[in-house]
């Protein structure tokens, strides 16, 4: 069984650079890639009844959009380079969900882009990459 590398993608430049680095790594170690898009979502938020009514619809379209605009466009180019690629879209707390996915897919390495949020932002909301580095059981590479 070949190794698997999980790459967190969100359409940002940072995440594209992370993918670049992961591809190099994957070729050198002949690993497979798992591209993961996590949509930030909490089961403990407050909504109006109308938002609840449309939630299922919205979820479907969020998944669709993540696949269409971020994940699917990468697949062809990567497969052309001879890499095996899986994609997954999931809702949840970003760091936590990435770890769950890493566990489910049995990956040996995680790549993530640095968002470069301001200090204030990090102070209030925390940093995804920092949380991941602190808690991940497998090596995490944060790409600037």
């Amino acid at each position, binding site marked *: 069984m070949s190794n698997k590398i999980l790459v967190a993608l969100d359409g940002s430049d940072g995440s594209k650079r992370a993918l670049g680095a992961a591809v190099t790594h994957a070729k050198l170690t002949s690993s497979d890639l798992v591209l993961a898009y996590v*949509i930030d*979502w909490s*089961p*403990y*938020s*407050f*909504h*109006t*009844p*109308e*938002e*609840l*009514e*449309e*939630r*299922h*619809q919205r*979820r*479907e379209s*969020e*998944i669709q959009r993540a696949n269409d605009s971020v994940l699917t466009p990468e697949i062809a180019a990567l497969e052309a380079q001879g890499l095996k690629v899986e994609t997954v879209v*999931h*809702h*949840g707390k970003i760091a936590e*969900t990435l770890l*769950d996915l890493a566990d489910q897919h049995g990956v040996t390495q995680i790549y993530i882009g640095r968002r470069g949020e301001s200090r204030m932002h990090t102070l209030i909301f925390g940093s995804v990459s920092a949380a991941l580095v602190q808690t991940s059981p497998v090596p995490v590479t944060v790409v600037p």
Partner: protein
Amino acid sequence: MKRLFYILGVLLCSTTAAQAGIDEAINSATAPIATLIGQIVFFKIPVFGAQLPVVVLWLVAGAVFFTFYMGFINLRGFKHAIELVRGDYADPNSHGEVSHFQALATAVSGTVGIGNIGGVAVAVTVGGAGATFWLIVAGFLGMSTKFVECTLGVKYRNEFEDGHVSGGPMYYLRQGFSDRGMEGFGKFMGTFYAIGIFIGALGIGNMFQSNQAYVQLNNVSGGALDGLGWLIGLILAGVVFSVIIGGIKSIARVTEKIVPFMAIFYCVFAIIVILMNANTIPTAIGNIFDGAFTGEGVAGGALGAMIIGFQRAVFSNEAGIGSASIAHSAVRTDEPITEGVVSLLEPFIDTIVICTITALVIGTAQVAAPDFAGEAQGVAMTSAAFEREFSWFPIPLAFAALMFAFSTMISWSYYGLKGWTYLFGESERGQTIYKLIFCAFVALGCVVQLGPILDISDALVFLICVPNILGLYFLAPIVKREMNSYFDRIKSGEIKKFK
């Protein structure tokens, strides 16, 4: 929107004397209508010297029946409800769908309204301290009714092709009866309920809320808004208008996020106030128990206290009215029972926790200073009880009342609209008509006196809960079967925790 501002402008130009006149004129015009509606719907049977409104009997009988029939699900299901809300049983693959917590939070912010602050004061004024005891009993029994209606709401909800869902009593009445081979009767009941909820939404979820929000605003401004009910009414109506017709959803979203924090803030301060009067707590609690069984000093004695307690509890937690099942039905789950179990927490939070806290704030104040509130009634009385300890409290309380009132009005405009679209279809034009009527009643609520408002609102509640509870009796066996099967599978380990 423009037209609204135009009317507002014209009204502003009139003299102060005329302004006071508007309130009075509208008031005297509506009072007799309210009294009449109240008399018809609130048909009372004299029982041992007390007047027992049929509606209260109807709701309480239902709640007692469901509590026994479901084998005290309100006690048995409590722990499981918390596990469900915590997400212990949530499948990670369904993340992104409406969670149990979200459905509960939305339904609670629809029910936690002015009733929790002002309604309790009304209960204590009219029914004495003993009403509090019956209020709590009614909250406890109401949990079972909620369980039945919310389970059915999810089980029989309607999923449209584009993926959005609509549920609630009109759907479970129609489908449930139809499944039992009574298609025609089901259709009739669904329609009956839909009419009830769309008219009823104008009372409990509308006029009563805007009325009490205005009273508290007037109260903190030292009476500066006397006679200006119409103006506050128009402003409130304007804000509601901008959300439900203008589509400014951000206002609703913000309210939805503020309300839970306001509720916590309210409870924390209420507990502080109660603790500051710690020496009066034993007497206050003693009064509640004494009043509950002796009914001292209350018209109709213990039974009078009981009736008032039950009435205000139902008005606050909406168990038996079926409104919450509209909000709960958005949850996606293969097990409708889970949503019913979660909904148990709603009357618990609303009535057993928040209403009891309010009652204790008033009760302890009454022991310390029997005449603390003077002439004040409703929300103003609760405010006076807080003011004894924190002179500044009426101001945040007014803000909280406004927020509670507003979120309840937004929720109810949605419930009413669901009744309307059930009857008249999803046409945009029809929906706008309904929303305009809704806004007009918001404004009207600020002008009419509390008495007639309560009469109308109570009467309309009755209108909604007749078809609903009747349906619940018929459909209860289905719920019971599902409930037993569900808990058996929990016990056998077939349904597992994910966490």
